[in-house]
């Protein structure tokens, strides 16, 4: 408000009386990736190029121009200057933007405008250096770079020679630094990736433990859960108590606790014992009270046809006290009716 401080929302605030709103701007955290390494964290919009938001600045022509231009090494503090006009520093006490000093603007323009001219481009309009104050003049503060200001933004890699090249060009197989330093020590880590232990394949960190195997031996999906002793890991790495495995209820979100619960296990003599996977353990089925309709049901559950043949056998003949097991032979899978998909 004209008479007081800026309230939370300038446009819709009812705290200002009618006609008493001024064009007040707010300090906001810098999110423009290009300028994340500045010695200040807050900015204020509109900026000196007329962009109304950081989003608008991020897709602007200038946002792609300056990072390209900085690669020509035309001026050490070019990126610092670019950021002072793309994301002007905001003074949190007065909620006002602080301009770059005129000398910084003039030096940037003097040294880099001619480089742009070579490729037929123009220095950005709206960067008339006279709009910026002289250092130590009129009690106005302005920004100058520190000696140790980082020349390359976080999205850039600094060559040994000092030149900045786009980080995406680091370890891409093409030398971009004149000293080839962007192609040295190129492991997964240098590229911000994770290395599969077996074949050195590099994958994104977000691909680890996401339920999708990316390394050939699926090592990126190992050790993703810390299940308790009485729990088992679902395919999507959630933990579910063992006793809920194959209990007929869906407990894993991906239903993996109810997969392959009925099987025919072949032992050394090729007998097909009916096997039930229950509470995370395989059991042969006891033949007590076994009925033929249960054989039909088991074959059906496995998607196999009939008619089933059932045998009741002793699993270990040398241990006659052992209970009898169900030996099951199902028919072939029924012939499928054709259907276009």
């Amino acid at each position: 408000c004209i008479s007081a401080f800026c309230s939370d929302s300038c446009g819709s605030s009812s705290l200002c009386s009618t006609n008493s709103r001024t064009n007040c701007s707010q300090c906001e955290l810098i999110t423009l990736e290009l300028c994340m390494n500045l010695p200040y964290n807050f900015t204020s919009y509109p900026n000196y190029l007329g962009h109304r938001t950081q989003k608008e600045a991020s897709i602007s022509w200038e946002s792609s121009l300056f990072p390209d231009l900085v690669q020509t090494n035309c001026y050490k503090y070019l990126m610092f200057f670019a950021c002072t006009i793309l994301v002007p520093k905001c003074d949190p006490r007065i909620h006002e933007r602080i301009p770059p000093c005129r000398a910084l603007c003039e030096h940037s323009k003097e040294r880099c405008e001619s480089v742009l001219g070579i490729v037929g481009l123009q220095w950005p309009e709206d960067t008339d250096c006279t709009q910026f104050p002289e250092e130590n003049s009129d009690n106005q503060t302005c920004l100058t770079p520190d000696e140790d200001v980082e020349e390359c933004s976080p999205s850039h890699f600094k060559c040994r020679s000092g030149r900045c090249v786009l980080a995406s060009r680091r370890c891409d197989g093409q030398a971009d630094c004149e000293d080839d330093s962007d192609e040295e020590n190129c492991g997964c880590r240098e590229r911000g990736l994770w290395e599969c232990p077996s074949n050195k394949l590099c994958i994104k960190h977000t691909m680890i433990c996401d339920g999708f195997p990316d390394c050939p031996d699926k090592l990126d999906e190992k050790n993703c859960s810390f299940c308790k002793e009485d729990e088992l890991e679902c395919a999507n790495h959630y933990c579910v108590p063992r006793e809920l495995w194959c209990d007929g209820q869906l407990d894993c979100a991906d239903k993996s606790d109810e997969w392959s619960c009925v099987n025919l296990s072949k032992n050394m003599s090729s007998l097909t014992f009916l096997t039930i996977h229950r509470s995370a353990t395989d059991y042969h089925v006891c033949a007590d009270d076994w009925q033929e309709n249960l054989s039909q049901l088991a074959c059906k559950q496995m998607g196999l046809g009939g008619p089933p043949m059932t045998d009741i056998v002793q699993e270990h003949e040398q241990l006659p006290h052992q209970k009898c097991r169900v030996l099951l032979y199902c028919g072939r899978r029924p012939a499928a009716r054709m259907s276009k998909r």
Partner: protein
Amino acid sequence: ILGGRTSRPGRWPWQCSLQSDQSGHICGCVLIAKKWLLTVAHCFEGRESPAVWKVVFGINNLDHPSVFMQTRLVKTIILHPRYNRAVVDYDISIVELNEAVNETSYVRPICLPSGGQLVEPDTYCYITGWGHMGNKMPFKLQEGEVRIISLEQCQSYFDMKTITTRMLCAGYESGSVDSCMGDSGGPLVCEHPAGRWTLFGLTSWGSVCFSKVLGPGVYRNVSHFIDWIERQIYIHTFLLN
């Protein structure tokens, strides 16, 4: 896809969705060049006019269009001249788009096999699609890993139907992973050691997949049609346009 899982967005950048304004997603399709798709011919039964179709690329969730999505209209539909809806042999078609797609990491064509390049039985490959999951139609693209089955073995599942060399069978005896209604026209792709993916099949037909009678899926053997595909694209690019 039965027995599959939800795909990570962008993993299958050649997968596209053939849609009509009235029905939404109808069939899958595969991008093979910036202006050309492959799908199966039976998708166009009763809807032969290009005007009723649109093709959506770069999408994972059919219900939530993403910023990577691109939509194109259909200029030409080329059905294989030997396609017969009663026999389902030669179930393949080529679609020309009205405008090329912009190639991005989310929209990218897949390599075709060479004419004689065949995929061996017991090779593991992937199928993808927005088809039926057995209990519901998914919004998100599903993927499933299937094993290539020899034609002889495949024939034993379909004694009422002849499996020809224009077909490719893939799946499992248990039918645990399979394509289903709505996956037609989508890809069966196999990865080579260098991480290079090749399109070997197009989802075509199989058992009534959400019944209890399962079996492998039957796919169009793309290798068999390479000459025809190349010839059609040449004719429509250089001779007819």
